[in-house]
């Protein structure tokens, strides 16, 4: 289901443990990672993760709250959005 696809965007200063930290939270929440891309923009590390939450027992709200918390612990900004917004906006 397209509803179950979420896009997590993590941004901030590059440091050790970002991928590990966020991945650990996702594993605990039962969220499956489908794709990861990373880039550097204006000295900022940006990582995007495409995930599927259909097998998770947690609600979108809980998953988002946990990820934002996890990001705060790492000193990173975390955006969690349903992927549909990107598909609609950028596809004719």
């Amino acid at each position, binding site marked *: 289901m397209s509803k179950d*696809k979420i*896009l997590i*965007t993590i941004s901030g200063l590059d440091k050790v443990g970002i991928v590990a930290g966020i991945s650990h939270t996702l594993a605990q929440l039962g969220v499956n990672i*489908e*794709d990861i*891309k990373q*880039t550097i*923009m204006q000295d900022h590390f*940006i990582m*995007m993760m*495409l995930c599927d939450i259909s097998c998770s027992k947690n609600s*979108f*709200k809980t998953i*988002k709250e946990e990820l934002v918390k996890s990001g705060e612990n790492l000193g990173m900004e975390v*955006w*969690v*959005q*349903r*992927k*549909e*917004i*990107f598909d*609609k*906006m*950028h596809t*004719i």
Partner: protein
Amino acid sequence: MAGFNEKNIIETIQMIKVHHLDIRTTTLALSLRDCISEDIKATGDKIYNKIIKYAKNLKKYADDLENEFSIPIINKRIAVTPISLIGESAKNPDYVYLAQILDEAANEVGVDFIGGYSALVEKGCTKGDEIFLESIPEALCKTSKLCSSVNLATSKAGINMKGVLKVANIIKKAAELTKNDDGLGAAKFVCFCNSVSDNPFMAGAYCGINEPECALNIGVSGPGVVRWAIENMPKDAPLGDVANLIKKTAFKITTTGELIGRELAQRLDIPFGVIDLSLAPTPAKGDSVAGIFQAMGLEQAGAHGTTAALAMLNDAVKKGGIMASSYVGGLSGAFIPVSEDAGMIEAARQGVLTIDKLEAMTSVCSVGLDMIAIPGDTPATTIAGMIADEMAIGMINKKTTAVRVIPVPGKKEGDWVKFGGLLGEAPIMPVSKLDSSIFVNRGGKIPAPIHSLNN
């Protein structure tokens, strides 16, 4: 495994986070035709119960979607059938009572505004309309979330000039009754030519009598995003290229709006209505239609060339939006509310943007003379003249035009007024000192124009 394009992700987040892309309003349009009764109390009860029934989850579901898509939904609103029609059959048509019921219901469900305290009098008034119009200033004074509108003209019926003068007096009285809030009552009232029945934007939203039982209409925003896109172009890019970029940006804004609208409608278990393609500014820095003119290469809003820039912007937004959605409606045009647009406020403060220029601009965009603060001692007849001019532009050009001016009690040209929130702030703008009184006191109507020989 579905993929994604990282440039698209970053662009979307920048549009939301830096350039103020948001859903301006999710407006639940609700018919109250089944609430009519001979007993005004019974009418009030039916109205209250119906609003609660349909709108009780509007705010919660909108908040949920805001969280899921990380896009702000600024306002949640309700638009109802023109109340002049709903109260008319009552033995004692106490419209102010109904206004208070609407306000109570709006507070109960937690929406930001409720519109539809309205009348459609372009050809004249019924007995009920007469009583209703008299009630508007008091209704606006005794409520906080209620918005009111009156349609005074159409391209097919002409302009009801008796109504124009009456409405000018309503504006004066609404401002005077709310003088402690700088005439805020008048900021929640608008008069129209060719009003539309599925408009989600306030103060003019109402649910037309030709509308279904209920529907969810969406208004998007995005002047900041359009400005950003244009600013990233070379300064010598031809205007055709600029128009093309605006179209592409409008497409992105519209698809996002429709996505949110359809999801919300589904959750509320009501039909999706329309998406309104208007570019609505906010007083926030950067979220300004005037800023788009500057990005296009005009020193400020008000410079010669502003009307041309606005015409191109308005048309390109529609073209991009139409490509994105088949459910387009409402007003669908760029808004130029002075007090709600940081760039317009600045231009007005410097005196480079005048009411005359704004009037010219309204001939190529929606909606009209909007959120303009004028001296408190402006005669009602002068306001009536302004309304008549604006109605004439709408009538002849077969488009919607409107007037929302605030004669701020006790303030004069150059003073400053703050309405707060989305309504913003503005300097008091000068109006013509010339007398229009004999013309507007003639009454009667300006006949509908000829619809052929279009030269």
